[in-house]
């Protein structure tokens, strides 16, 4: 039997329209919020997976025309969407997942009228849903730890390093956060692949 192979993309929504230096206001009533959490804040509930899918399809149609639309039409699906973590999982056929990745890179705002400006960042591509789910859980945990570290005032932390690092070898061997602080990024929340 011929196997139909797919790829699962784990995508984060990073919000870019932040007020400057929010956590540094002295004497403000609100408790300081980690910048990392501001970039990765939850999405409004109005955004539904169908709207997101429609927006991705229209971006592909604009970038790649009828040919591109046809290539991914059968297989493109939003498998999971979590507004709370601003994360979603897309399924695409293996041969054309890069089309979808490219379209995501060109999308600048949330798919709504006057949608907020944001970045769609693909953080994991995998052949199975299970591995992508595990990665989503792992990243959520690291995000919490990194945000806590940032609020404690640590300018670089192992959790943040693990979150930003694209070296998969070290990601796999990072069992518990700690003891791996070599090239951790020290900027607050600026995600750079």
């Amino acid at each position, binding site marked *: 039997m011929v196997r139909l192979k797919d790829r699962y993309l784990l995508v984060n929504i990073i919000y870019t329209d932040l007020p400057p230096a929010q956590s540094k206001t002295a004497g403000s009533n609100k408790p300081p919020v980690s910048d990392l959490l501001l970039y990765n804040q939850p999405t409004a509930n109005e955004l539904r997976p169908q709207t997101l899918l429609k927006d991705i399809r229209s971006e592909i149609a604009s970038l790649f*025309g*009828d040919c*591109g639309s046809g290539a991914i039409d059968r297989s493109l699906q939003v498998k999971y969407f979590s507004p709370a973590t601003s994360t979603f999982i897309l399924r695409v056929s293996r041969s054309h997942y890069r089309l979808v990745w490219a379209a995501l890179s060109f999308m600048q705002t949330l798919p709504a009228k006057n949608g907020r400006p944001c970045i769609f960042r693909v953080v994991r591509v995998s052949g199975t849903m299970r591995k992508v789910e595990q990665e989503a859980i792992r990243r959520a945990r690291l995000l919490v730890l990194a945000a806590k570290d940032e609020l404690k005032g640590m300018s670089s932390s192992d959790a943040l390093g693990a979150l930003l690092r694209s070296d998969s070898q070290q990601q796999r061997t990072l069992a518990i956060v700690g003891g791996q602080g070599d090239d951790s990024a020290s900027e607050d929340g600026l995600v750079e692949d």
Partner: protein
Amino acid sequence: VYSYAHLTLLSPISLPLDNLQLKSYLTSALSQFLGQTGLGIPIDILHLDPTSSSSSSSAWVRLPRPDLAAFSAAITAFPGISYGDEKIVLKVEAAGDYLGALVGKGEEQDIWGA
């Protein structure tokens, strides 16, 4: 490096073809089939045969080699431009990597008769 294509424009009325007109037809075809990445394919128009017969004209174009397949597909898939009840369409007569071979093939018809 480059590939070449010999295109024919078929139209119900005799249409004087010029570079700009052809470029606009190609742009239409590419943008419909391939979107913005299609528009990014650099096409050089090498030669135009305005009236080989009164209802069809011929053109030779050059494009980067990796894009030949996509370009041919786009031209073939192009539904054409409506002209009243009829259509103006583009046809790929020949496409390939070597211009000399394509020109020669075109001349074959004249040599061997038909």
